Structure formats: C-alpha cells, structure tokens
C-alpha cells in the first residue's frame, strides 16, 4: 500500500509539471504582443515597457519559465492586472464559493441518483425503468446554460420562490447547485442502474434471496453496497467536470467563485489571473483524481496495489 501511495504520488509530479508548462506557454500563444493587448491599442510605449518588465516578459523564455516555476513553488502567481492584487490572494478569496457550490452539486447529484438508479434497476425493462433511463438522457443532454435560465424563469420569475442570483443564504445555493448537479445526477443514475443490474445477477444475491431476505434488504444492503464502488470513482472524476461546469453556472447565477473570476479575467485580458485560475482548477482536478484513486483501493479490498 505504501509503495503504491508513493508511486501514485510520484506519477502526479510529471503531470503537474506538464500542466504548469502548458499554462505558462499560454501567454506565448497570444497573437501579437500580449502586453499591448492587455493595455489596449492607445497605451503609451513607456507603460507597455513597464508592464512588460513587471511581468518578466522582457526576459528570454527559459528565464521566464524558470522564474515562473520558482514563484509557483513559493505560492506566487503574479499580480492581477485588473485588480492590482496578488493573483493567489484573489483566487483564495473566491475558491471557497466554488468548492461549496461543487460539493453541494455533488451531494445533490448523488442523493438523487442513488434512489432513482436503484428504482430503475429493481425492474429492468419495465416502463418505470425506460422512463427513468430516457429522463437521464434528457438530463445529460440539457446544457447548464439552458437549464440555468429555464430554472430562473420558472422558480424566480414565475413562482418567485428562489433568488435569481448572488451568494447569500441557503436559498441562494438551490438553483446553482441543482443546475450544476443535474447532468451529474443523470450520469450517476445510469451508473448505479448498470452496476445494480450486474450485481443482481451475482451468486451472493441468489443466496440472500434464498435465505428469505426481503427484496428491499437484498437491493439496499447487498447489491447497492457493491455497485457503489465504481460510482465513487465516477464521483471523484466528475468533481473536476463540475469545476469546469462551474465556469458557466457561476456566470449565469453571478456566483462569486473561481469560475466567474476566470470569465472576468478572460474578458478583461488579465492573463496572469487567467493563468492562475486555470492552475487552481487543474490542480484541484489532479488532486481529486489522486484521492479518488486512493479511495478506490480502500473501498474495495479485492483491489491489490501493485
């Protein structure tokens, strides 16, 4: 177990280095002079030169790269051009809002998917199974920039039950979390259903039934427990997708998280901030994937680490 942990951690290092290199190279993809673009067409030459020096873009690329890695190792992500504050500080102030939203969406997705998936798998091929399976495809195909405004029209404009946007009390969480978690919930439902159908054909389920256990006990205590293992992996992997989805959801609901910050930074051509946001999301994604891999082994003792 310890050697697996070490190996898995070591494998993460080149991936993270690759991510950092890619994000660093982005500023060199900008067509033309990135500093001129940041300051606008009418900027004074002296201002352009000053910002170029401040961003270190007057140095050779290798020096820039070395400095970028060095700064990163010391927790420095540069200074935001728009806010005039350290990028790391801005991201840290917005990060909790995004994590809260993503975690709530994950909880919503899982708490809806598990009972619905079990219900569909209990009678595979029945009308309720077909209805629920079709509903999941609809849910997966419904983009959050469609479901978000639709939810606002229904629950905020027509019914007046929930606030339109912003981050305040618990009511503010409902629409963004449900919008972000809806398609995750649909994917998980399909996974729970597929896993349950597979488990229900196993010998231990026949044994449980022949012992005279009720169908509910067989479903929930025996089959569900085993079918949840791959679901946990998907939950972990989908967390990253939620972070990316948060960019749109946060924009729709004016949620003050890293996603909305990314869009604001892109629109104001604040490249150091864009790079910082990308790194924050990618690092979170890699970390969650790492934790999921480790959790997978803990959940299923049959999996041997080699």
């Amino acid at each position, binding site marked *: 177990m310890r050697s697996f942990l070490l190996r898995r951690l070591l494998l993460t290092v080149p991936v993270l280095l690759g991510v950092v290199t890619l994000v660093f190279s982005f500023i060199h993809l900008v067509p033309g002079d990135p500093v001129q673009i940041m300051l606008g067409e009418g900027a004074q030459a002296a201002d352009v030169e000053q910002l170029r020096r401040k961003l270190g873009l007057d140095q050779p690329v290798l020096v820039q790269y070395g400095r970028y890695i060095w700064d990163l190792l010391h927790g420095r992500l540069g200074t935001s051009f728009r806010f005039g504050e350290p990028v790391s500080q801005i991201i840290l102030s917005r990060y909790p809002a995004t994590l809260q939203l993503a975690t709530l969406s994950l909880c919503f997705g899982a708490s809806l998917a598990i009972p619905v998936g079990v219900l569909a798998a209990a009678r595979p091929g029945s009308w309720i199974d077909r209805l629920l399976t079709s509903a999941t495809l609809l849910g997966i195909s419904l*983009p959050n920039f469609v479901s978000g405004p639709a939810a606002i029209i229904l629950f905020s404009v027509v019914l007046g039950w929930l606030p339109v946007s912003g981050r305040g009390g618990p009511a503010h969480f409902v629409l963004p979390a449900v919008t972000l978690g809806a*398609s995750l919930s649909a994917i998980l439902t399909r996974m729970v259903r597929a896993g349950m159908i597979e488990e229900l054909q196993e010998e231990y389920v026949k044994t449980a039934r022949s012992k005279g256990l009720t169908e509910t006990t067989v479903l929930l205590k025996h089959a569900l427990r085993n079918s949840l293992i791959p679901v946990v992996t998907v939950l972990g992997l989908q967390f990253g997708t939620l972070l990316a989805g948060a*960019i749109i959801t946060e924009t729709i609901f004016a949620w003050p998280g890293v996603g909305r910050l990314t869009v604001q930074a892109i629109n104001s051509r604040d490249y150091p901030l864009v790079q910082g946001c990308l790194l924050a*999301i990618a690092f979170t994604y890699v970390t969650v994937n790492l934790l999921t891999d480790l959790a997978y082994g803990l959940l299923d003792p049959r999996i041997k680490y080699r």
Partner: protein
Amino acid sequence: MNLFAILRAVGSNRLALFGTAAGTLLILVALLAPVLTPFAFESQNLPLRLRPPSAAHWFGTDELGRDILSRVVYGTRISMSVGFSVVLVSSLVGLLAGSLAGYYGGWFDEALMRIVDILLAFPGILLAIALVAFWGPGLEKLIFALVSVGWVGYARLVRGQILKVRELDFVRAARSLGASNARIILRHLIPNIIQPILVQASIGMAGAILAEASLSFLGLGVPPPLPSWGAMLNDGRSHLFDAPYLVLFPGAATMLAVLAFNFLGDGLREVLNPRLQSGSRIAR
C-alpha cells in the same frame, strides 16, 4: 460487421433510429438554411425589437429586431459545421497517433501517453476555454481549440483497441505473408477497431456542439453577427423577465442537437456491442 449490417442494426434500435432521424433533420436544416429562413439572419429592424412570437416572426425578434427563427436555423449551420469539423479532424488525428503508438510502442507511445496524461489533467472544456481565451475568438480558432482537446479521447481509445487486436492470429498471418506495417495498420487493424470509434464520434459530435455553444455563451466562440445558439442564449439572459422566448428557442435547438447525437451514440453502442450497458461516456 459491415456498413450495411450496421445500418440495418441502427434501424432496429429505437434510440439510434431517433438519433439518426433527428441528426438528419438538423443536417438538412443546416444545408437548406437559406431556403428555410424568412429573413436574413443579420438584418436588423429596430422598430420591431423584442417582439414575441407572431405570424410574421414565428420565434419572435431579438433586441436588435432580428428574426430569431432565421438565427436559430442559421445557428444549426454553425453547430453542425463545427461539430463535423471537430469530429473529423479529432478522429483522424487520434486514429493516426493512437494506431502508431499502439502498433509500434516504444518512445512514441510513451511520449503520447504523457501528453495524454497532461491534457487529461484539465477538466474537459476548460482547456478549450483557455486556448480560445489566449488565441482570441474566431470560428477557425474555436475549431482548432476543440480539436486540440478532442483528439486525446480518440488517441487513447484507438491505442487501447490496437493493443488488443495487434497480437491476434489474422494480424500475425498478414505479417508472416510479408504485409508491410502500413498495410497491416490500414487494411487489417483499423477496419477491425472502427466500431467503438463510430460510437465515440457520435458522442463526440454531441460534445463538440455543446462545447461550441458553451464557448459562444461565454463570448469566446463565434464572433457576431454570425448566429450561434450559445451566443443567442447569452444575449437573451438580460431579457429573462420580459422576453423569455429569446432563450427558449436556441435552448431547445441546442438540447435537440445534443440529445440526437447522444441517442445515436448510445444506440450505436447497444447495437454494436449489446453486452455493454449504458455508461458515462455520453457528452455533457
């Protein structure tokens, strides 16, 4: 399974049939856009701004008085052309990279897998958003950004399939008969792994349509006045209270397109490999 057998099987699967019908309809709408639209998609008529659906403007008008129906129909053209371009180029690049890596192995395989690992360290659309953010908006840049992200899935899939097939007897037989490596890859390996690629391509089409709409929604996609469903949804957000039809029609069109190709992919998967149950590879 040859092409005719696949088509016959598609006809017998309700999901695939619905997906094919809806996909064909969308392609026809895209091709016949100039005939189907009552107005030019860019023609403005300010006195008629924000009019609800009527006999003259079936889907209403937007805040510049443009006909929403015409813009939704022309938006189909953008979505379909982005979808097809992205799927075609991504699958070709993925097929080439994945088959070379899977067949030859060695340093190329190692290098490819490390690149794949790095690209997969970014959640889905985030990398495309990043690329477009730095490159700037534009149709070609958008397609290029989506291809830069999209080929990875195909390369990984193809590599895995080639690794499975390359040691089978028929490949050894071809090799012992003196077939060249190129001939083995093109004539023996690729035809035998094409089925999962078809499924991936169909789901990838839904993904590309969704990604284009997402980027356009964020203002990073197709530049105005070209009509994109995502951009129309974004424009309509400020009128959710007084003109909800601004988001209703482009939203429904996006959903139909994504649903059609997801249904097709899901149906194809069932048809081509009935043992596989519906999983999580669907585009979202």
